[in-house]
């Protein structure tokens, strides 16, 4: 791996980190347990490693953004997560922030494209 590749990988991971949290919070408006959540995110185009997702769920729960409960499903005990009321508020604010950043980046790129033409 070249230095440029390493730099890209580090920046990619940095960029993804915040986006993954946002996606997980958004997806957990509906209740899920770890594996089905991962599957649904992948179906919507966001692949996420198990070793990243499961600890992330724990961290978000510790921060009070998620609530969880153990329940039996298909003869197996599973831990189901969903967004807490505090998580809903935070998600709304994060989505506002996300939209602002997205719009700003789009504007910057559009302006640069217009200059180069």
């Amino acid at each position, binding site marked *: 791996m070249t230095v440029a590749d390493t730099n890209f990988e580090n920046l990619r991971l940095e960029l993804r980190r915040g986006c993954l949290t946002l996606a997980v919070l958004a997806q957990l408006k509906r209740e899920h*347990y*770890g*594996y*089905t959540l*991962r*599957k649904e995110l992948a179906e919507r185009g966001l692949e996420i*490693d*198990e*070793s*990243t997702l*499961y*600890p992330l769920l*724990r961290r978000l729960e510790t921060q009070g953004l998620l609530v969880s409960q*153990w329940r039996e499903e298909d003869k*197996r*005990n*599973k*831990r189901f997560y969903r967004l807490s009321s505090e998580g809903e508020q935070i998600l709304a604010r994060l989505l506002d922030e996300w939209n602002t950043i997205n719009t700003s980046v789009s504007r910057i790129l559009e302006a640069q494209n217009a200059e180069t033409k």
Partner: protein
Amino acid sequence: MELLDRYLQAVRKYLPLRRQDDIIAELRANMESQIEDRESELDRPLTQGEFDDFLRKMGHPMLVASRYQAQQYLIGPTMFPMYLWVLRIALLWAFIICMIVAAVVTPLTQPGAQAIFDALFRTPGILLQTAAWITLVFAAFEFARTRYPNICPPIEGVNKSWSPSTLPPLEKDTLRKGKPRSFVQAVAEIIFSVLFLGWVLLIPHYPFLLLGPGVVFLKTSPYELASVWWTFFGWIVALGIMQIVAKCIDLARGTWERPSHIQQIVFKIVGLIPVLVLLAAPGHIYVLLKNPAVDQAQFGKNLAQVNDAIHLGFSVICAIVVLQLAFDIGKWVLETYRSREASRS
């Protein structure tokens, strides 16, 4: 499934004790669901190789477990600038104190050059210990701050009392690097160096050039100089020649404006040799009696005092030169590092 159990057992060992059961139960449920899904897709149980691949994809047990740990720093970003500042100041002072002890206190309290070298060689160990203690104190503080936030008040870091008006004034490059040497100055230095060397070479034949009227005392007194002074004289002449050659090379290469730092440091290091030669004189004898059989009783006591005084004098000179050398080397290393960083950016 035995392999899954073994895998989860390995993960458990790296997990925080009070959350082990909960995390492992959740991980097991998720992994079993995933395996079931995969098996129903394939319509058969996973082969040993597929199971291995699945676990390999999950990651090393230590890595998987580490993701469940809170992010930990030995010294966090808030404390780190303060830690670095304290470390630099402490190491600088420890180094200065070590040098003073090695170059001033040791020669005054313990005889012989070996004691000075021993004191100098102790310096790296003392610096390491200083760094280790400071790191330990900051790490302990960081640990207490993150684990017991209710007991330890939040640290504002270096931001609290900062004001733009406290910023130091701009450093002028000309002040730091000094005024460049002119060509006339460089030539004059060579001429005077040659004249100085000539004067030094004439001293053994015409001692009055150094002692003036005092030469009469040298002839009539019961004392004479020890042979170590000839070795010292040889080194002084060699140093003089070396400096003249280096200055001529600078002139020929057109680099007389700013002689290199390394060259100056090398001269200072080599300049220490004559002083060390005198310090290492056998028995610290610099002055002898011309006729010991006759004069020992009358002048023997004075002679010992004179030799001790000369040794002490050269010990102090050596200490000053070593301190200055250490300062110059430190300054040179810092400037080299800064200019490299500047050229990189």
